[in-house]
């Protein structure tokens, strides 16, 4: 009897000790991550206050003069800002409209291939552009489109047509951005749909076949409904990035001749902030953009989640 009592107190004592000693190593594990996040995330967040100041490099962030909303008023009155805002949204919308269906079509067609080997080869090749950097991709693009030595111009010159400097022409710039953007990402974006198609019950296809459904009708009535949710979720999430656009692609491909149609918020703030060192103004623009961005991402995430819940996964 006393033996049991003794034993249970030992356990009690032990579990108490365990609890105390358990917490300490946890903080040890968290420490490096927490420090890095404080320094490289929270301190820059605090640095946003220079959007409300007139940043003076000699005085530093703290002692620079407060100017209220002057920086915000300035860029809201600036037509350059509205130009890059318009370009950002327009290029984004075109990218979504053109870029959304292509991975879906690619995934469906890939799934319909009879040869497993061809399927594998095509898929592997479709990933290739995803793995190369934008510097490499932009290098390939400028070289293929080069007016003097590029393959396309070499080709059209043979028909006696004058070479075209594609990247310096306003009417070609956006199509180039959109097509090359799709080129770089369609393979990896198709991964979602390939997974969704693989999850469709094959009995549905068998049943459709017995009912005499043609291939096209099978795709329409079985495949498309099977990937509908995935498509909606991805579309909604893409809309969430409406005011943010990849910096690298445009920065590497644009030039002053196409600023009117190709300059976007990220490239504009880079020039304004880093090249012209207008820190306060740039931070004000960045702050405004990140608020709009947050609202968009947050709402679209919520919508995407509710869509995902409605359907069976």
């Amino acid at each position: 009897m006393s033996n049991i009592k003794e034993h249970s107190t030992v356990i009690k004592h032990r579990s108490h000790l365990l609890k105390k000693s358990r917490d300490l190593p946890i903080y040890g594990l968290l420490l490096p991550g927490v420090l890095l996040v404080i320094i490289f995330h929270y301190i820059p967040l605090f640095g946003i206050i220079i959007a409300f100041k007139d940043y003076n490099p000699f005085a530093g962030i703290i002692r620079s003069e407060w100017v209220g909303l002057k920086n915000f008023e300035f860029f809201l009155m600036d037509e350059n800002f509205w130009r890059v805002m318009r370009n950002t949204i327009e290029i984004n919308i075109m990218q979504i409209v053109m870029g959304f269906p292509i991975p879906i079509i690619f995934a469906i067609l890939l799934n319909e291939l009879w040869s497993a080997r061809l399927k594998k080869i095509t898929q592997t090749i479709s990933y290739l552009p995803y793995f190369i950097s934008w510097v490499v991709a932009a290098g390939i693009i400028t070289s293929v489109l080069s007016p003097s030595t590029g393959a396309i111009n070499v080709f059209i010159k043979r028909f006696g047509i004058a070479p075209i400097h594609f990247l310096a022409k306003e009417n070609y710039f956006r199509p180039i951005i959109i097509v090359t953007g799709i080129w770089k990402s369609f393979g990896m974006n198709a991964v979602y749909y390939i997974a969704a198609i693989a999850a469709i019950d094959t009995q549905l296809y068998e049943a459709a076949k017995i009912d005499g459904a043609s291939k096209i009708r099978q795709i329409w009535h079985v495949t498309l409904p099977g990937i509908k949710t995935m498509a909606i979720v991805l579309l909604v999430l893409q809309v969430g990035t409406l005011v943010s656009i990849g910096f690298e692609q445009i920065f590497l491909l644009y030039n002053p001749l196409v600023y009117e149609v190709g300059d976007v918020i990220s490239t504009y703030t880079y020039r304004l902030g880093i090249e012209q060192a207008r820190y306060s103004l740039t931070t004000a623009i960045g702050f405004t953009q990140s608020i709009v961005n947050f609202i968009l991402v947050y709402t679209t995430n919520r919508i995407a989640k509710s869509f995902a819940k409605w359907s069976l996964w």
Partner: protein
Amino acid sequence: MKRATGEKLFQVFNIFLMIIIMASVLLPIMHIISVSVSDSRAITTLGVGLLPVGFKPDAYISIIGETIFMRSFINTIIITVISTILSLAIIIMVAYALSKKYFLGKSFFVYFFVITMYFSGGLIPSYLLVSKYLKLNNTYLAYILPILVNVFYIIVVKSQVEAIPTDLIEAAYIDGAGEYKILFRIVIPVIKPTAAAIGMFTILNCWNMWFPVLLYTDRREMWTMQYYLRAVVFEKFLANNAENAPAVVGADVIPPQNYQMACIILVSLPVVSIYPFVQKYFVKGILAGSVKG
């Protein structure tokens, strides 16, 4: 199995489309390779399309023999190795800690990390911090430190650790194992595939890094491969910057066009030759992210 004529036609049409898609990826690359090995005069006079004119690998030989190129290559490897190891270590440590059911301040720490996914200070505050306040210009730290914590990956790993049966971990406690022992003996073996996928993404990101170089350095010894390529292709540093141009340039021996294309091939070669073997990690990583995100 007999297939209807309609289906056969569809299949032929489908294969034809797939060939076009493959061509859209492979033809530009063929063009680059052809130019890179073509005879210099052919490039400017005849124009090189898809097939090389002549065969001269001179550009490759001179690039590989160049000090800035080798330096950029070594820098890229150093940055990639250090960032990937440290980043994985931090992601796993934080994810494991946050997966604990109870400890003082748990929900505070979860929010502390998650908030950073939605709000960031933006380009200028980070730039001022790294360059003006921490004075990390011209050091590897400026490239590495800001990218070490990836909250998205932390959440992916955390939810995987949470899926480990609690009995398993409790049993280890009773046997007297400490947190670190549990982390290495139980948790890490379970999350190994995910960690491998995250490691691959980190390696790819580091390998393709160039923007921090643009922001934080004015020394060639600190260039990465991508930045070197950018300088060669976009800043025309070979053509316009005669005094900095590599000794081998000698203008009529190797034309810049040759050189630029050879550079593109060399910089992308490691990734392009490895990715077919590791693509499954990326596919898995992307799908895991879609489930959690």
